[in-house]
């Protein structure tokens, strides 16, 4: 990224995404309030709105959580992932409105301040119906606040993507706390089993999608030598290799679709091996922007394009084209006997290496 920070880097796609999001949220709130007013006309307006905002936030949290595994299972979901951070911030805003109304209704006019009131209310941890569910919601709110507050690219750069991602993985802790907040709070007062069933179905959906996506991706994380693949020094050139110079055969070159990548695991991380225009090159799989999976992207206009936010890298050097300055580590590649061979030693980010030429009898080395 070589430009100054702005609040939001607007483009047409983001505007369409956000308009659709706002319309969807407003439609949900209107339907929820309309249905509640019809079925429970005695409910006060503030409690009705509090439940509408809380339910809206909980539903959006499910959407946020299932986008990741859905994209790994089917690329057609990728447009939803493009602006997922705005979904998360919208979810936080709904949660904030829910929290403000809950404080106003239940904690604003007592003998102690609202925060003390929430923390000290319902001390019966041995009772399901009187369990202190509000501190659970407060803890989840704190996590979602931290995530929303650090959603800007400034935080990605200043915390570094791995730390930022680890921080944002706390969303699963927040989700667990919110499931308990709902189960021990709103559901205790419900006589109908519909809401309990929907909450359980949501939990099941989130869990199943993550398990299926993890099982499908597991083979890519098996280190190559341990998986029994051949580790070879190509014949004919073996005498010229130094002792620590080994090449790993990762896949038949024909198995890589044009403009796409084969993902493998070398040197402790995933490597994306791209084939395009009769050439093959390999780079570290993690995009420098948000550690998105480069190997799930495509080569567009001669550049590896991250499927998450469109950050681009030249395959041979792992550098973003000017004026941008992102860089990822690169790997030396050969093609021999129809197989792609990779030197498993990563080169420093942005190191230019000659791509291997498909069909070249000798193969293009480093």
């Amino acid at each position, binding site marked *: 990224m070589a430009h100054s920070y*702005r609040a939001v880097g607007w483009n047409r796609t983001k505007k369409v995404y956000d308009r659709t999001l706002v319309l969807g949220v407003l439609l949900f709130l209107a339907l929820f309030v309309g249905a509640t007013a019809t079925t429970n006309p005695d409910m006060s307006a503030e409690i009705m709105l509090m439940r509408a905002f809380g339910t809206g936030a909980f539903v959006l949290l499910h959407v946020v959580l299932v986008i990741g595994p859905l994209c790994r299972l089917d690329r057609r979901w990728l447009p939803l992932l493009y602006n997922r951070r705005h979904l998360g911030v919208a979810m936080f805003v709904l949660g904030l409105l829910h929290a403000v109304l809950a404080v106003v209704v239940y904690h604003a006019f007592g003998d102690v301040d609202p925060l003390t009131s929430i923390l000290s209310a319902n001390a019966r941890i041995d009772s399901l119906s009187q369990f202190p569910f509000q501190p659970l919601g407060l803890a989840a709110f704190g996590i979602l606040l931290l995530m929303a507050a650090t959603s800007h690219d400034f935080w990605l750069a200043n915390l570094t993507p791995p730390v930022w991602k680890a921080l944002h993985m706390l969303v699963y802790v927040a989700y667990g706390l919110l499931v308990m907040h709902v189960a021990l709070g709103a559901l205790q007062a419900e006589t109908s089993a519909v809401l309990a069933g929907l909450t359980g179905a949501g939990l099941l959906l989130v869990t199943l999608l993550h398990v299926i996506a993890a099982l499908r991706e597991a083979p890519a994380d098996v280190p190559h030598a341990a998986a029994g693949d051949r580790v070879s020094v190509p014949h004919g050139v073996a005498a010229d290799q130094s002792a620590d110079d080994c090449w790993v055969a990762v896949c038949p070159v024909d198995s890589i679709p044009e403009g796409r990548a084969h993902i493998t695991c070398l040197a402790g991380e995933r490597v994306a091996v791209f084939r395009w225009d009769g050439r093959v090159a390999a780079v570290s799989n993690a995009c420098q922007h948000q550690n998105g999976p480069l190997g799930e992207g495509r080569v567009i206009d001669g550049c590896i394009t991250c499927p998450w936010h469109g950050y681009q890298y030249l395959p041979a050097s792992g550098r973003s084209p000017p004026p941008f300055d992102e860089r990822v580590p690169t790997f030396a590649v050969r093609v021999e006997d129809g197989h792609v061979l990779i030197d498993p*030693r990563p080169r420093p980010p942005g190191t230019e290496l000659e791509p291997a030429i498909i069909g070249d009898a000798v193969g293009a080395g480093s």
Partner: protein
Amino acid sequence: MSVDVAWWVSRAVLAYGLVGLLFAVLFVSLGVRRVDPLAAEGTLGFRLAILPGCALLWPLMARRWLSGQRHPPQERSAHRAAAAAQHVDDGA
């Protein structure tokens, strides 16, 4: 949680938040340009967008500002670490 303990916890949270808010206003006005060159010409919208995060993570950003770091830290990953080690071994 007893009311007494809850009172002390809420006071601690409030104090942390107030110090964070004061620091964040100072930091987005003066400090952020010193720790990240891309923030030097950051818009007002950008400064407002990062203000809550600065208030929450103020010990981290204060330490970075006071230590005089001029750039964001480098990302650490297995490939980047191995490449750096290899680079040193090669005497580059």
